[in-house]
């Protein structure tokens, strides 16, 4: 299949494709595998939680891997911690206020420092991260793996490709006006975020 090329398309981000045309990967995973883990390690308390309500899409042109468009969306109400009282506080108006701010988003703007290794690759992805209604441009390291023709293997009847994205980065809650400077003994200022998501690009 010499006419078919491929590249590792990166992204949070980038997509590698076997075709010379943009592919759109949908990150709403019916299997419920996509997840984000967040950790806050304060002197008096360590908080570990997850978010599972992930959606959004990313479009990438393999012939121009830096040309990536897309947006990853997390439903704020799906943020979960094992303690029910803590979860109520987390969702409440003093902290994430899920009723007023139902979504956390990351909109891709730029991909740089792309390094390929077969069907995988790494890159720095710059985008606008919006949390609690506050938008801030951040750059995060991303590892992407392109899995051509693997969509059907996950179940279902549709052929297609998968793009797996992993990223670890940190944000400061005060940057997003989340109880800035308060309760730092129990709720750390720095939030560690680990993202593991897979997007699907069904073949028409």
């Amino acid at each position, binding site marked *: 299949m010499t006419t078919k090329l491929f590249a590792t398309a990166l992204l949070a981000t980038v997509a590698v494709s076997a075709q010379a045309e943009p592919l759109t990967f949908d990150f709403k995973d019916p*299997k*419920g*595998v*996509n*997840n984000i*883990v967040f950790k806050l390690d304060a002197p008096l*308390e*360590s908080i570990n939680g*997850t978010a*599972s309500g992930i959606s959004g899409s990313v479009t990438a042109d393999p012939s121009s891997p830096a040309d990536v468009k897309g947006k990853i969306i997390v439903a704020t109400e799906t943020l*979960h911690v*094992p*303690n*029910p*009282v*803590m979860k109520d506080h987390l969702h409440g108006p003093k902290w994430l206020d899920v009723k007023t701010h139902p979504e956390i988003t990351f909109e891709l703007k730029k991909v740089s420092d792309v390094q390929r290794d077969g069907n995988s690759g790494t890159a720095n992805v710059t985008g606008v991260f919006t949390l609690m209604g506050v938008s801030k441009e951040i750059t995060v390291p991303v590892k992407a*793996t392109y*899995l051509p023709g*693997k969509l059907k*293997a*996950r179940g279902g009847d549709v052929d297609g490709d*998968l793009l*797996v994205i992993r990223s670890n980065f940190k944000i400061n809650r005060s940057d997003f006006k989340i109880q800035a400077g308060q309760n730092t003994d129990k709720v750390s200022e720095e939030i560690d975020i680990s993202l*593991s*998501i*897979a997007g699907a690009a069904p073949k028409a």
Partner: protein
Amino acid sequence: MLRTFLRLIAAICLAGVIGLWVTLGAEKGWTKTSVPIQKTDEITGIEYPVFENRFVPGLDFLVAGCAGSIFLAAVSFIPTTKRKKP
């Protein structure tokens, strides 16, 4: 008679709370009502948590239970005035 009963209840509560806390994992954090079970998606290799509803008492449960037991025991030591027989 009531004093003995209260002390007995306090001792049973204390033993029960400590026993439950130890048996259900001796969690040193907050009480949990769900526990993540880590799974791996075979195709993508993504590790993801599946939450199982399970009660895991934490230190808050232990402290509250011990405090309740101590309160019951303390009540049993409150002096009472005896009624004089007419």
